[in-house]
């Protein structure tokens, strides 16, 4: 029976009074890419740190390859590659020392793959980490994260603050990790176009709770963006069924809505309007609506 690579059940976590994760459940199966989206401070990094055993589950359980990453860090971490958000690397090491140091923890280290990646990034092995630019630091961290060909690659905001060239390197690493014998990737990002392109599965975290989770196509299919025109003018957003966000004014409105399309049509018709066109919503539109932004109060006057 195939087991989940990652199995998080009902995980809660507080830092002092502040709740960081609240009853989060999350599964990842082999050979797929999981995108984690949410605003800064939503709990994405806290969740990822639990997978790595950097934080102990206070409530709920965390299993990676069926193991508890806190009780068996060696068993878990040698099969995992990780690039942290702030790319903590030992500042005083040279790039080649960093590679040797990382290799020591990973019996499956592929030295020729590491060399090939360093060359393709034009990274000078004799440079010290503290001399590296932000982009070069991300590249060095990426090589250290993937050269042992991990079964699970975890990237926390890998594109954050990087130029297009280095971002591309990171995305290529994700594609290669999955395409070459079906490994698993979990990455968090605030760049929704990147998540939409790169993810098979998307999980949205808002204030420490999972607000949306599913196969990307299923998630997107549940939401529509429609252009609607009414006979009369509306100063306030018209009260439509299942509308999550509305833009526009007067007779023309653009509405993000969920649920049945027929029901939405009826609801528009009941207000003397017609639906001009509908299409599946983009991930960004869904995210903004679910995160509460773009939502306007829909109240009876």
């Amino acid at each position, binding site marked *: 029976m195939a087991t989940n690579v990652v199995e998080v059940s009902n995980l809660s976590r507080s830092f002092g009074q502040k709740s960081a994760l609240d009853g989060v459940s999350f599964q990842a199966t082999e050979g797929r890419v999981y995108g984690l989206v949410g605003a800064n401070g939503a709990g994405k990094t806290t969740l990822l740190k639990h997978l790595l055993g950097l934080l102990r589950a206070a409530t709920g359980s965390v299993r990676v390859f069926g193991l508890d990453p806190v009780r068996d860090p060696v068993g878990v971490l040698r099969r995992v590659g990780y690039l942290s958000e702030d790319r903590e690397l030992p500042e005083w090491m040279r790039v080649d020392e960093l590679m040797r140091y990382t290799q020591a923890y990973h019996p499956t280290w592929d030295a020729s793959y590491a060399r090939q990646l360093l060359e393709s990034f034009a990274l000078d092995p004799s440079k010290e980490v503290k001399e590296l630019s932000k982009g070069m630091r991300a590249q060095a961290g990426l090589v250290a994260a993937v050269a042992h060909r991990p079964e699970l690659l975890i990237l926390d905001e890998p594109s954050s603050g990087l130029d297009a060239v280095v971002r591309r390197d990171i995305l*290529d690493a*994700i*594609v290669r990790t*999955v*395409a070459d014998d079906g490994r698993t990737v979990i990455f968090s990002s605030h760049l929704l176009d990147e998540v*939409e*392109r*790169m993810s098979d599965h998307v999980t949205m975290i808002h204030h420490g709770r999972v607000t949306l989770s599913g196969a990307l196509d299923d998630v997107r299919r549940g939401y529509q963006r429609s252009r609607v025109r009414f006979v009369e003018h509306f100063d306030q957003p018209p009260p439509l069924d299942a509308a999550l966000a509305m833009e526009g004014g007067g007779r023309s409105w653009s509405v993000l809505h969920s649920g049945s399309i027929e029901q939405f049509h009826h609801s528009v018709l009941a207000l003397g309007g017609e639906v001009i066109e509908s*299409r599946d919503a983009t991930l*960004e539109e869904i995210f903004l609506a679910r995160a509460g932004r773009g939502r306007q109060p829909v109240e009876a006057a």
Partner: protein
Amino acid sequence: MDITITLSDGIPIYRQIANQIRYLAASGRLAPGEELPPIRTLALQLRVTPNTVVKAYGELEAAGVVWKRAGAGTYVSEGLSRLADRERERILEQRLDALLAEAHHLNFTADDVLRMFNERRALMTPVPGGELVRKEKA
């Protein structure tokens, strides 16, 4: 292979890939028997998850546009011509549907559209390359 992904119109990426490959095959820019790029290559080119390319190729295979040789690549089907005719029709139908919807919202009748179609047609002229171009203004 010339494929462009847009994220602004809400069409799933796998469907965009499948539609554009159908179009390339229907228009003859992908020849029967031609091999499609390997999944990894196309995923890297388009910067999409490989599973999306798998899904697109799967859909094309189910529709008979391509076939997979076990342990080898994915190839454009031979004898696509009838399918290609249907596909060419489908592409135009989509454009026509959009045009008719737009016309309806601008309060034009189907007869208006037909009249305008013929007027515009009269302004076009075929050139030796087989293309249609606007006539120079008289």
